[in-house]
């Protein structure tokens, strides 16, 4: 049985004392993460495992919680640079989330038609949601037209956080931002809704790679930003199995919580059930145990 590889790259200097991101260091982290994931020696060769120049790539970020608890724009830009290096046209890259306003609040520069990668929300004029409903297992939703029509593959750029309902928000839950009615999926710790949504063919088949922002981890009180429970972890988590990335993210949050004397998510009543549901025999979306994950941890 093949294992899913997940690479955690950390650097103590990636968040400067000022709180700003050291972009040069971040680029090195992304390069190293991709190379270690694919066993390639260059990031171009690494990213070619997942993308080709003809792809229209959605870079799905998570910007719901404001500047301090969302996917850093620097990560999206670094990854876009990697895609450009293998020939993906900038006009064929879209950094996106639910709303343009939320993207802008976090520091993304909206760009509908100008130079550089595109950046806008599903609520931008002329975008919106699909005409046809997804009706799949427990999911009844309209899909963002950015996924349905404007892009062909997704590079998932979630932010790792504690979540008051699901326990963890990371790669799998990031697609709640791709449908029109995520509020309908909050019952029972968002389970099995997160797993069901990720199993929807339009999402499962587009998902290629995850580069998770764990630079600053909200390890308690999430998904909103609470400075007393935010740690400069200085990491990224890279993988092509979103379940395994989430599982590793879950371990990271629990480890930080232990370090701060907090109970584990399970003891706090927020075990992220959706990760295990996504791995079960009905969903088969990835691996959710240390025995099945080849975890590589590295530092710069």
């Amino acid at each position, binding site marked *: 049985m093949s294992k899913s590889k997940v690479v955690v790259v950390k650097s103590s200097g990636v968040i400067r004392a000022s709180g700003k991101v050291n972009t040069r260091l971040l680029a090195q982290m992304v390069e190293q993460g991709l190379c270690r994931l694919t066993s390639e020696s260059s990031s171009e060769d690494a990213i070619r495992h997942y993308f080709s120049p003809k792809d229209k790539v959605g870079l799905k970020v998570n910007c719901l919680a404001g500047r301090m608890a969302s996917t850093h724009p620097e990560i999206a830009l670094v990854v876009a640079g990697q895609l450009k290096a293998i020939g993906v046209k900038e006009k064929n890259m879209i950094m996106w989330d639910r*709303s343009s306003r939320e993207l802008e609040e976090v520091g993304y520069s909206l760009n509908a*038609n100008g130079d550089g990668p595109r950046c806008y929300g599903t609520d*931008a004029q*002329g*975008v919106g949601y699909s005409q046809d409903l997804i*009706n799949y297992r427990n999911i009844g939703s309209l899909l963002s037209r950015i996924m349905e029509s404007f892009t062909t593959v997704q590079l998932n750029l979630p932010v790792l956080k504690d979540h008051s309902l699901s326990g963890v928000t990371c790669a799998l839950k990031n697609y709640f931002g791709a449908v029109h009615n995520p*509020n309908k999926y*909050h019952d029972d710790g968002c389970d099995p809704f997160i797993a069901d949504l990720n199993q929807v063919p339009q999402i499962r088949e587009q998902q290629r790679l995850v580069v998770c922002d764990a630079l600053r981890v909200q390890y308690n009180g999430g998904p909103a930003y609470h400075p007393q429970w935010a740690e400069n972890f200085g990491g990224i988590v890279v993988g092509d199995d979103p379940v395994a990335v989430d599982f590793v993210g879950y371990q990271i949050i629990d480890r930080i919580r232990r370090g701060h004397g907090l109970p584990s998510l399970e003891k706090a009543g927020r075990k992220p059930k959706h990760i295990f549901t996504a791995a079960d025999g009905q969903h088969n979306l990835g691996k959710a145990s240390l025995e099945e994950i080849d975890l590589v941890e590295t530092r710069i």
Partner: protein
Amino acid sequence: MDKLDRRRFLKCSLAAAGGMMLPRVLSGGSILGSGGDASASVAHAGLSQVEARYYKKLEHKEIECELCPRKCKVGDRERGYCGCRDNQNGTYYTLVHSYPCSANVDPIEKKPLFHFLPGTKAFSIATAGCNLNCKFCQNWEISQVRPEQVRTYHLPPEEIAAYARESGSRSIAYTYSEPIDFYEYMLDCATAGRKRGIKSVVITAGYINHEPWLELIREVDAIKVDFKAFTEDFYQDICHGKLKPVMDALVDLARSNIWYELVYLVVPTLNDDSNDIRRMSKWMVKELGSDVPIHFTRFHPMYLLKNLPPTPVSTLEKARNVALDEGMNFVYVGNVSGHEGEHTYCPGCRQVVIKRVGYRIIQMNLKDGKCSFCRKAIPGVWS
């Protein structure tokens, strides 16, 4: 979210088969940045920021909503299940106050309310949002979306009351989606309407907590409750809710003086079991009394239940017969125009006291609230 000229609004509202429902903006269609299809009179969703009622503040900017039985715990920058109430920095807001997405002038029979001011018009409004998610929802394009995903008018309560009056409506109806979710707006409209002599009627699933429900009952004039089924499984699996709170809400209605009627949408194979309908009828006779009207209405394939056929008329007739057999006095068949089950029959002499075809009344044999044939009082609000 435009403020409309009243004459223009009414002209629009009354056009096109008696009203309009504003189109959703869930899908764009035009190329990004190339203008848009919003007309001059309609803008993309306005969002209100009126503090919600019935919630409590928790630690760390979390809140717990106390409006409906879901009791959503909502973190900062998150929304409740309904999608139209938003936690902003520890304060819970309704986003839909004064921003309806639908406005129509309907016959009151369309609600359906058959024993409340028959033959009158109801100025009918809705906002986005619902605290249930029924797989058969007929209006899912407004009920199962967020307020920013539909187009809206800016219509404060005073203007709603004024429009109602100018359109010749005797009542304002809160309908189409789930008015529990625009609770604050509904109450303010009811107050504004009362000042102008306009009544208020609520079309709801009755999925609400006791305290806000009792307040609502005090403030409005009639309520129609969609009683979805008489099994817990149906409420959980098909509606994402629970049966018990609805039963409790119905008992509250029975103990009050307000006029109310029930609708039971009969969905083939899911809630059409005669035994369940019999159990429900027995419960209604015991807890609500035999005079509460119940409408067994026809399902049409919609939303997430497109795989089922429309309800056979024979199934509706069977349900009606079961309820009549158990002692219910006013049992109707709905969504089958021209059916004899649309008429109101006097429980005393069995004569037709109100004859209807669809939403039209074609004969009234009712005088001063009594059967013209045998003078038996027919329960309802007739004038």
